[in-house]
């Protein structure tokens, strides 16, 4: 090391890698930061989700198509086939977060680090997770979003981090450094954004990041289905870390910084190696190199007795006791693959025959954003990334709770009109959806204009009145905010007007509202603006939504093509 000048050492490959990680983490956060009406301006806001090859592959399994930009998965797939799982330690923002946390809070000495970075059978779990998720996807239940690191991180930023960061950026930080307030994720949001189950999404992040203190890169090594997917592919990679048994003294120092727990000190586990290249840096003997087309085995080429010092390889004495240099495939016994496959086969009916995601038992509050495909197709496509929730300007889009959508629909987008309403001239959610669960929808299509006049506007639900809580109906009190804000033309809320004498003798004209179901699009602004704020006197439920034949309300109600 002392041989090179400092400026050369600054260009060490591991430093280049850190720059790459910082760049991609920054790009990731930047793209989520621009996922907002005033900033979107043609940025590929969902780029990371689109180039996640697991998203492309699993949705191709579930839908037999590759939607819109999902071909971008090739951008990660091809480098993986050439280099191995380099994505995990060069690009993946979630991996970077875990590595940074592990580094920052590490209290181990070198010996502790070496022990913590040895391979453990626990790390098979991610392959079993992957197998279960892919089998389910092939059957039509796409659940990769629960654990896919990009989906998980996007969701966490949208639902937990951005709402947590914004108030302090706008407040204290802006007072310290004037202008900092402009950095908020959601400039111009009228109120602090709130999300159903944000506590759980946030705590999950803390838990998974905290796990790094016990097992370094716990999520990446043990759980990550994308890592497992890339691990399976990396058996084909042409490059890998190669150990020169004539130089290696079995000191195990290469394990000190091994991110993937890939056993560089012995037979390198190609499927586990993140290509962080720390081992090359740490090797005092220069025995490790990142090589093209290395030999899978050298044992056959060793001459003489095995054992240090006595045998030779290519004329040089073999120093290492361990002659194995490569493990190509993931270390998962066949019967465990089988178990995972059976588990996936069973998990599908367990999820799908839960009442809430079925035509016969759908939750009245499972109101999907406009442009959503019918529920069975929706569940084949939605990866729970919550980019739609992130971009929604009124905060009406919420990650679904278990009680609304079961486990299968957990964190998929539903509308909560106590929080916001679906803005008439907005189709942003359909623009950012990477998988077509919310199909790209033009405003003309949403509103039923122009070429779409025949099929009519997209309806996401229908409004109902609770006359027992409505001021003009139940309390002799004039109101009709609902009729006033109704955005359709003609209005979907009409009134029966009646002059009455109140209990105290005062005459009053009441405009008692009713719904015109053929006009209602279910936007929910009536519910949002109803003065009976805790349990509104007018409320929207999913029936009448035009994406579904099962949930229509009116005979001959227009169905979307």
């Amino acid at each position: 090391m002392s041989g090179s000048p400092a400026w050369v050492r600054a260009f060490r490959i591991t430093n280049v890698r850190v720059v790459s990680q910082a760049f991609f983490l920054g790009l990731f956060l930047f793209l989520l930061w621009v996922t907002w009406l005033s900033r979107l301006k043609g940025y590929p806001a969902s780029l990371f989700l689109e180039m996640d090859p697991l998203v492309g592959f699993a949705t191709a399994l579930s839908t037999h198509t590759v939607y819109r930009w999902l071909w971008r998965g090739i951008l990660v797939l091809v480098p993986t086939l050439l280099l191995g799982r380099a994505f995990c330690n060069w690009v993946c923002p979630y991996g970077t977060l875990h590595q940074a946390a592990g580094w920052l809070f590490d209290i181990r000495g070198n010996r502790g680090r070496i022990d913590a970075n040895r391979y453990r059978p626990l790390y098979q779990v991610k392959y079993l997770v992957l197998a279960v998720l892919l089998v389910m996807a092939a059957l039509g239940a796409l659940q990769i979003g629960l654990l896919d690191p990009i989906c998980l991180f996007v969701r966490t930023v949208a639902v937990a981090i951005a709402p947590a960061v914004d108030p302090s950026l706008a407040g204290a930080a802006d007072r310290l450094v004037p202008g900092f307030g402009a950095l908020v994720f959601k400039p111009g949001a009228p109120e602090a954004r709130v999300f159903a189950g944000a506590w759980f999404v946030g705590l999950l992040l803390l838990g998974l990041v905290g796990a790094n203190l016990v097992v370094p890169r716990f999520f990446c090594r043990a759980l990550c289905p994308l890592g497992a997917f890339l691990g399976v592919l990396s058996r084909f990679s042409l490059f890998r870390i190669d150990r020169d048994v004539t130089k290696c003294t079995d000191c195990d120092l290469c394990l000190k910084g091994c991110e993937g727990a890939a056993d560089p000190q012995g037979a390198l586990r190609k499927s586990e190696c993140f290509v962080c290249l720390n081992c090359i840096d740490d090797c005092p003997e220069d025995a490790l190199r990142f090589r093209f087309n290395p030999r899978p085995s050298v044992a056959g080429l060793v001459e003489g007795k095995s054992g240090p010092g006595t045998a030779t390889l290519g004329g040089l004495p073999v120093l290492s006791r361990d002659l194995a240099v490569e493990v190509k495939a993931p270390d998962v016994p066949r019967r465990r693959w089988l178990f995972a496959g059976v588990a996936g086969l069973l998990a599908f009916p367990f999820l799908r025959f839960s009442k809430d995601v079925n035509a016969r038992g759908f939750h009245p509050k499972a109101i999907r954003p406009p442009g959503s495909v019918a529920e069975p197709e929706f569940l084949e496509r939605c990866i729970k990334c919550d980019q739609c929730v992130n971009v929604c300007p009124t905060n009406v889009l919420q990650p679904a709770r278990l009680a609304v959508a079961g486990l299968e629909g957990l964190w998929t987008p539903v509308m909560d009109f106590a929080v916001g309403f679906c803005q008439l001239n907005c189709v942003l959610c359909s623009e950012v959806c990477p998988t077509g669960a919310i199909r790209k929808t033009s405003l003309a299509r949403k509103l039923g204009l122009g070429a779409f006049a025949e099929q009519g506007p997209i309806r996401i639900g229908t409004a109902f009145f609770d006359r027992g809580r409505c001021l003009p109906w139940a309390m002799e009190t004039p109101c009709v905010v609902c009729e006033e804000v109704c955005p359709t033309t003609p209005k979907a809320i009409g009134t029966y007007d009646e002059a009455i004498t109140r209990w105290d003798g005062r005459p009053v004209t009441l405009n008692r509202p009713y719904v015109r179901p053929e006009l209602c699009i279910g936007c929910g602004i009536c519910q949002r603006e109803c003065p009976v704020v805790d349990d509104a006197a007018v409320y929207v439920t999913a029936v009448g939504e035009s994406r579904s034949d099962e949930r229509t309300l009116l005979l001959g109600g227009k169905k979307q093509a």
Partner: protein
Amino acid sequence: MAEMDEDRRRLLKGLGAVAGLSLGAGYAALAPPGWPGSLRDPDGERGKPRPRALRLPEGGFAVEPSGVLPLLGVARGSRVDAMLRAAVDAIGGIRRFVSAGDVVLVKPNVAFERSAPLGATTSPEVVAALVRLCREAGASEVRVADNPIESPAACFERSGVRKAAVDAGARVYLPTAADFRLLETPGATHIARWPFFWRPFAGVTKVIGVAPVKDHNLCRASMTTKNWYGLLGGRRNQLHQDIHGIVADLALMLRPTFVVLDGTRVLWRSGPTGGSLADVREGRTLVASTDSLAADAFGWDDLLGRAGEPLPAYFAKAASRGLGTPDWRSANAREVQVG
């Protein structure tokens, strides 16, 4: 030398695998949607499910019309077998309708879990007689099917229709979710595309409806035309928003070989479910007709005894489509007294 060769072979194999996988994935993801093996879906259009719709045969299951035979055969009496034979004989006899080798679907109304005397379902004796008649004419198979409102198995059991049909030699089809497919009925107002109880129709050559005479709260009367409602699936509960339009659509959807109006009992009030013997009176009548509107009109005038009242609106709607004549009096009708 051997090592060099081995290195080169491994390299070629590795490059081949990487290139193959990359090109394969690239082709599937990027090839234009029309190309074989392409999975590309630029706008979500390809991902849309396209349920295959089916159609019933052109002209339905009707036989050649006859210029001379009566349109309506009415048999009065109490012996169901003889009455049915007499009524069918009046319109040409069973051999006019069913030939050797025919697969016949008999569609009773088994909508509710009610015992036969309560009049809410087709009489099991009439179903059995009809099945026997078809088999006698040489039908290779007779099927009995309905999609009831209440639990299918319970309806078929309690009404006695299952046992009667099976004992007479028919196969009973109870609906399951997989038995429905989208049916196209061109020209229908509401059910141009609607889920249809398809499975019992596979391979069928003749269809005979056999319906009780019932008062109906919304439709005013439920007889042979409304009986086809029991072949629909999907969101049937919407159809009541325009019941007469729907019954007229049903007449368009299913053109039967002939229909039997089961007037052995008449549910004259509290229909279509009834539930009390006080709601039922003896009718002692069976009607066979190739025209379900004529049969229904006869039921309205004669069996429900509402001759003075205007016919329910579905008659005019269906008649205006040329699907029959409600004017049974001027149509050729033959009445027979049996025993």
